[in-house]
């Protein structure tokens, strides 16, 4: 009798649960309409993705353009998951000993001005990026040093022929800066036309740009990814001050900021908005570096540079700085979660990453004494006038160096003069620098450590042919295990033995946004997944 009752009760519970499940709302389908308002904390130097490298351009301008391939919008955290954008099918498998990639170009794409897209447009785009005419800038030319030729045998076929097989090629194609331009525009208006004009095949059409105020885009109805975009349009609002960006989200004047906020800002917003706020977090393919000027004494001495890195308590700093700044992860030269990155055990063998900071600082003092500075010395740390994370980390490293007897003043410059000092004037002792990349592609991301006559973004002013040799070897090596072994030697020499320049901490991305913003997934870079075609508003 008791058993029967029990069975009846269980059946009733099961039926009730089933009924609840059947009435529960399914995963909400994207809704059409609405304008996404987001805030951008940096200015637009020009609209040309091929020459710019700032999120200030990417966030408002990327939605107007397409790429050949892109990071999978549904899995942007993966360093290996790429999907076609203007190409058809999947990423083609390489042929001819991994040196030939043949892409099929979609036939249903039109530029916003009505002109049809063919492989000739993609070829013209990559010609501009890889081998621009004299006098035309191309910021990521070095990423394609393996390319021998780009050809378009017919309107639907594009062929890349490589000089040697390398795993760095496909990720380079997915860089979000590789906007596809119209060949007709390039031929008719020249290679600088796109700096001030927009004509792409992206999910949104350019409407207007009010400098210092906003950029406006409207849905492109002939967009080639069917059913997208979901939004009617977007408005990218310029707001250089973080307080304004925060208040914009809090007051619902904007729904999202795509770069990232510090932890305290996230906590304040969450406290104020509760469920109305969603927070997405991710490791960030960006690290903050310390760059000693090798042309200035005493930083021409490897012992002094090693002392500088040995003084920094990265493990302790990560614990505390992650509460107040957008940095968190301890890592070497490679993005920490990538298979080519050093494990914790490998890291702790590198100067500056030793687990015992007292031992590390004792060694730093010994090195300074050996170099002729038993009582330390004074120098100036050059830094960028941006709080997060530059000035916070700058203040922290100054305190770290103080612990080995170094007296350091800070010299802060706004972004423009800061870059001018690094690139042209070069009149700094030690500078804060950064290595921020978009698609995780360690084989080329670590190019910042090769000689300055080969890497355009190495500001420490040294030449190290051994590093150059290993860099080339790594890039030509098809075996991942061997790549990894070379990477370890490369890292040890760059960060420890020569301590040419060194990584402090890797950034950590925190994106609090209004919960009604759906479809956008955080990527390990603030440059990625900004086409906005999969974003929708649930309001």
């Amino acid at each position, binding site marked *: 009798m008791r058993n029967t009752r029990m069975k009846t009760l269980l059946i009733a519970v099961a039926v009730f649960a089933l009924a609840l499940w059947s009435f529960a709302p399914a995963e909400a389908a994207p809704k059409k309409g609405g304008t996404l308002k987001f805030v951008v904390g940096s200015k637009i130097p020009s609209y040309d993705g091929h020459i710019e490298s700032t999120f200030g351009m990417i966030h408002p301008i990327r939605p107007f353009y397409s790429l050949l391939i892109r990071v999978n919008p549904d899995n942007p955290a993966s360093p290996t998951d790429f999907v076609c954008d203007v190409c058809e099918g999947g990423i083609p498998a390489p042929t001819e000993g991994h040196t030939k990639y043949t892409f099929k170009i979609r036939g249903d794409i039109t530029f916003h001005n009505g002109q049809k897209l063919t492989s000739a447009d993609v070829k013209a785009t990559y010609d501009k990026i890889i081998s621009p005419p004299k006098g035309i800038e191309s910021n990521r030319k070095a990423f394609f040093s393996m390319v021998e030729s780009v050809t378009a045998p017919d309107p639907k076929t594009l062929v890349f022929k490589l000089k040697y097989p390398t795993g760095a090629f496909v990720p380079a194609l997915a860089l979000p800066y590789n906007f596809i331009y119209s060949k007709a525009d390039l031929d008719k208006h020249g290679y600088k036309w796109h700096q001030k004009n927009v004509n792409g095949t992206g999910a949104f059409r350019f409407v207007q740009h009010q400098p210092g105020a906003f950029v406006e885009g409207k849905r492109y109805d002939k967009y080639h990814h069917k059913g997208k975009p979901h939004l009617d349009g977007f408005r990218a609002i310029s707001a250089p*001050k*973080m*307080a304004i960006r*925060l208040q914009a989200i809090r007051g619902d004047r904007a729904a999202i900021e795509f770069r990232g906020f*510090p932890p*305290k*800002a996230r*906590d*304040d917003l969450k406290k104020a908005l509760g469920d109305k706020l969603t927070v997405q977090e991710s490791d960030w393919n960006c690290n903050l570096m310390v760059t000693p000027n090798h042309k200035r004494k005493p930083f021409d001495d490897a012992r002094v540079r090693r002392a500088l890195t040995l003084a920094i308590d990265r493990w*302790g700093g990560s*614990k*505390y700085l992650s*509460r*107040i700044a957008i940095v968190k992860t301890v890592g070497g030269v490679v993005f920490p979660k990538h298979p080519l990155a050093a494990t914790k055990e490998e890291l702790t063998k590198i100067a500056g990453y030793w687990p015992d900071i007292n031992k590390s600082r004792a060694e730093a003092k010994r090195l300074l004494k050996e170099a002729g500075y038993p009582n330390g010395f004074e120098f100036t740390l050059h830094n960028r*006038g941006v*709080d997060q994370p530059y*000035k*916070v980390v*700058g*203040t*922290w490293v*100054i*305190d770290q160096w*103080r612990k080995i007897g170094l007296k350091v*003043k*800070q*010299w*802060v*410059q706004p972004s423009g003069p800061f870059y001018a000092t690094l690139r042209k004037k070069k009149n700094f002792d030690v500078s804060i620098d950064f290595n921020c990349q978009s698609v995780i592609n360690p084989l080329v991301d670590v190019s910042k450590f090769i000689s300055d006559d080969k890497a355009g973004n190495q500001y420490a002013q040294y030449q190290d042919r051994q590093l150059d040799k290993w860099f080339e070897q790594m890039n030509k090596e098809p075996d991942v295990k061997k790549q990894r072994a070379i990477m370890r030697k490369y890292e040890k020499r760059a960060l420890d033995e020569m301590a040419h320049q060194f990584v402090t901490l890797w950034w950590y991305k925190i994106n609090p946004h209004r919960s009604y913003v759906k479809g956008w997934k955080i990527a390990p870079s603030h440059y990625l997944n900004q086409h906005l075609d999969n974003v929708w508003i649930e309001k």
Partner: protein
Amino acid sequence: MASPSDLAVSEMDFDALPERSWVDKIKDTARKKPLGAVSACAVFVMLLLAAFANVITFYDPVQNAFDSMHVAPGAAHWFGTDQFGRDIFTRIVFGARTALFVGFSASILGSTAGLILGVGSAYFGGRFDLIFQRFMDIFISFPLIIMALSVVSIFGTGTQNVILAITIPLIPRCARVVRSSALAIREIPYVDAARALGFAHVRIIFRHMIPNVMAPYLIMLTSFLGQAILLEASLSYLGLGVQEPTPAWGLMLQGGAEEYAESAPWIPVFPGLAITAAVFAFNLFGDAVRDTLDPRLRSE
């Protein structure tokens, strides 16, 4: 009609008046100008804080102490701690050094340069005065902060450049006021007499004219002190003044106001109060000095 003997008696009485001590004089001034006295005390306290910062405070003003981040005001940390775990009271006391050093340096340099240029312009007069004053007009037409920002953007940040940035816009303001007094003095016969005796221009300006325009000079100098402190704080707040880890009130405000105004309000509040108190004290002090030294106000 008074006889010679009467006069002698009155002179005797005058001589017989007891000499007032400096304490009495201070008391008398404090009674007449209570606000001035309070502000002078505040300025004096600030000077003491700056001079004995090492003795007064218990913590290192620049050393990070991450195990004490964002501690609220209490017995251990009177004004709480900032995001780097640094004691805010200590940093405010040491910050007084920065504020006073920049404030005094800029106002003394600015006023003195203005004094010399203003008197020189009045003394030489004519076309020199006309052209020189038009230059002064150009400089005066810019608000102080805009002028200071321009100077910093040309010369860069850092304590010395901040002093320079504040000094330059103060010069024409002092020169204009001093010139008006010097124009009157130039017409007094002793200046003509000095010329007739063949004294050099420099001697006439420095020994005969400048001592007679000290009152407006001192008034301007004291009134500039508050302005200079406020400008230094403004430049630091904008990230163009002194830089971390140097303790400076504007810099402390800048580091805390945006991120911590809600969760740790003591981080921006105390530096803000320090700036307000200092500027208020110096302004009142300047007013009191003006009331004391300005002959027109004195007669009233």
